[in-house]
């Protein structure tokens, strides 16, 4: 059942379906603490219930310029290898079950998306990229296009 549950969000200017298994919660953050000399996709640190989370900017992972973090920004909290991360999201749309099967990515994607997208899925008449949130954390940052 859980396999069919997806979080539909707008990340790095693209609507995607995130596999919900790895997702912890969706929260809002204030101004994050900057981490000097960190890799460019690290947008900063913030605290949530006495845990420190590392904020990831998916734009940079995809190869787009970074976006500033606005107070009240919604982020998707995920756990990867026992560390807490949060992905900056442009918008959170919905959590829903999608009965349709995941299909192989058809067509040519931007190189950044090609690296993070696992598959495609049909939802309410739109094709969405299926992404595992951990890819934004673990993959090396794409060179700016």
């Amino acid at each position, binding site marked *: 059942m859980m396999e069919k549950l997806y979080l539909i969000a707008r990340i790095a200017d693209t609507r995607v379906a995130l596999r919900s298994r790895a997702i912890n919660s969706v929260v809002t953050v204030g101004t994050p603490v900057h981490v*000097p*000399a960190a890799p460019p996709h690290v947008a900063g*640190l913030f605290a949530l219930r*006495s845990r420190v989370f*590392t904020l990831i900017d998916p734009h940079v992972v995809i190869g787009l310029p970074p976006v500033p973090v606005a107070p009240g920004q919604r982020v998707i909290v995920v756990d990867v290898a026992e*560390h807490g991360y949060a992905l900056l999201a442009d918008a959170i749309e919905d959590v829903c079950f999608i009965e349709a099967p995941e299909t192989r990515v058809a067509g040519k994607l931007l190189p950044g998306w090609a690296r993070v997208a696992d598959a495609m899925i049909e939802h309410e008449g739109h094709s969405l990229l299926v992404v595992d949130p951990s890819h934004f954390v673990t993959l090396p940052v794409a060179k700016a296009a």
Partner: protein
Amino acid sequence: MIDDLLNDFLAETAEILAEAGGALVAWEADPADRAQLDAIFRLVHTIKGSSGFLSLPRVTALSHAAEDALDQVRRGNRPANAALVTAVLAIIDRLSGLCTALGNSGTEPPGDDSDVIGALALVDDTPVAAAAPVEVEATEEDINTDLLQSWRSIRVPLPLLDSVMTGVTDIVLARNEFARMLRESGADASVIASFDRLSDSIAGMRQSVSQMRMQRIDKLFAPLPRIVRDLAQDLGKKIRFSTSGGEVELDREMMENIRDPLIHIVRNAIDHGIEPLDERVAAGKGVTANIAVSARQSGNQIEIEVRDDGRGLSPDALVAKALSVRVIGAAEAKALSPREKLELIFRPGFSTAAKITAISGRGVGMDIVKANLEKIGGVVELRNDEGRGLSIVLRVPMTLTIISGLMVRASGQYFAIPRGSVREILLETSDSVRIDRIGGGELVTVRGEQFPLLRLEQVLGGEVDASEDRDDRAIILIRPGQGMSYALSVAAIHDHEELVIKPAAPMIMATGLYAGTTLPDNGRPVLLLDVQGLLAAAGVDASEAGRSHDADVEAAAEAAAARDAAQLLLFCDVGGQMRGVRLSVIERVEEVPAAALFESAGAVQVKIGSDIFPVHAAAVPRGRDAVKLLRLHDGQSVLCYPIEAVIDIVRLPDAVQTAPAPGLIAGVVLIGGQPVELIDPFWLMAQYGTGQAAPSLRQPLCRIAADADGWASNFLAPILRSAGYRVIGGDEASEERPDVQLCLTEAASGPIASDVPLVRLRASPAATGPEDDSIYRYDRAALLEALRRQVAGGRS
């Protein structure tokens, strides 16, 4: 259900086995110790009982055999001897092996134990062994109290403990948030009062929870007696092993990290440190060697010392060894200082044994020990006494997770620095700091000592913020490891706080600049700087060897020291008054816990490390956690002077309004228009003597009858005073009859009192003839001896 039972059994048995091993060795040392035997019997009996319940036939059979044998001894049917102990230890080893297998697979592996059980029966015929080869001083009370303690404690799974810890941290953060909101909302006093009560109990709870993570260091020591015994037997050495300070507590994670290094060091001591018996005899030592492991807490650090009375380290042998295994080159070898020679043992690829033995040479070297210690923020120290023994001291922070951190600002952001590596903090604008730009790099000279200067903003890849107040900029002298130091410039110093440290995300740790993250009370994450990583990132060599103060630039350092002589340390007295003291007499400023101060024989004293120093205070200060002390040093003795805070270091003005009478205050100077009282270190030191002459004793009066060109008052008088004499000049009137008088043979004869013993001094080293009883004036020992004789004679 059965799994829970099994887990409990395994945890309990592991503990019992460790305890039984140590108790057995202690019992072997003193077979008459009935209490010890009873304790071991009970332990084995417990294992037998619980294994029967869980139907573990092998465990039951093994423990039954051991119990049986021990029971025979208790009934007096069987002698207690080394062979029996060895056989029981073999059973204990087998039991440990079985338990490990049980833990892994959940079932008891099939196998045959008749060998170890048989060995137990065999020893019946062996005669009572002569002297036990190993003596272990484990005190009986220790074991009894442990038994008592185990009745009064319960087992809690570690994850539960950790989740309680996280929960409490959450509560603290929520409380802080709530406190902020309360302040802003202007709630009424009764609400705030009850909130404060809640706050206090939360603080108490946080404390208790951190204590729950602490374990007595006994646990770490428990396997050592057994290791010492077995190794000593293998090598044919006789060793008396003792432990102390087992009640010291340490975070359980920390404990895991020092277990292997400690065992390695003890093994090393037995294998390499302790000489073979004949060599000990030849060296005039007892055949039984001593190895002592002790733990003590000092501040928020734990010191664990392993001391042996073996041969110690030979610096020359170490160098020869290092050369032969090509750890260093010949040129480097020549340049090594004595300490660096000893520290060769920490180099990778170095092993002190002429050949790698089965015991110590297991691929774990002292380099790994050192690396492991450094990983958890600890250090390893060597105290070598060649020919007489070696002490290895491991110094570790009490907990991994909570450290004392200094908060600093750079580029408008806060960072934490572990307090333990901070040596000194100075304002960049201070008089004692000189910054030089050379060849694009920066160098700071503090009181004649040079340090490479790193600006935190630049190391972190930013620029120094021009809008920050330059006067706030501070320099932190950092000692990231032994023999290394550098200066870190930051925009401002904030304060220090106890910080809960958690590892940062791998991609942040990978920068090498940070050691973790922490959440201070304001709820915004702060990065903990890796003081060693900063160095690596800056690409600076921070080794102290070959720096200015070592060789050719020594003269320059001396000139700087001369300048310091005219510098004044301004501080705020405990009474809140601004006072000053010449910087040159201050050895350092020290902060000690208030508990280190105590009163003895009407005088306040302080314990710093293993030394005790007098403190200039009428009473032990109350109601504070820590006390700042100025350490005054006159070359021989130390006196501590409590202060509130250091204010600044300034140039000592020329105009000093001297005080009318000698006392604590030498005079008053104006600093920036403010009157500042000058402390008279001379008077202060005189009050607290050097321990040789109690201040209450009357000091003999020495009169300098005739002085040539002021030599006596400039050169001689200070020596006399430090030797406990009061000195007056020839032309000073004194109501008191001098005990002794001194005159220079060459000087124009002054008024010499005929009724006072006289010591004559001459300027030339050689006496003019056999009847010449004068003393060469630079022969300090003869001079003081003659004075002493005359004073004693005059009194008798």
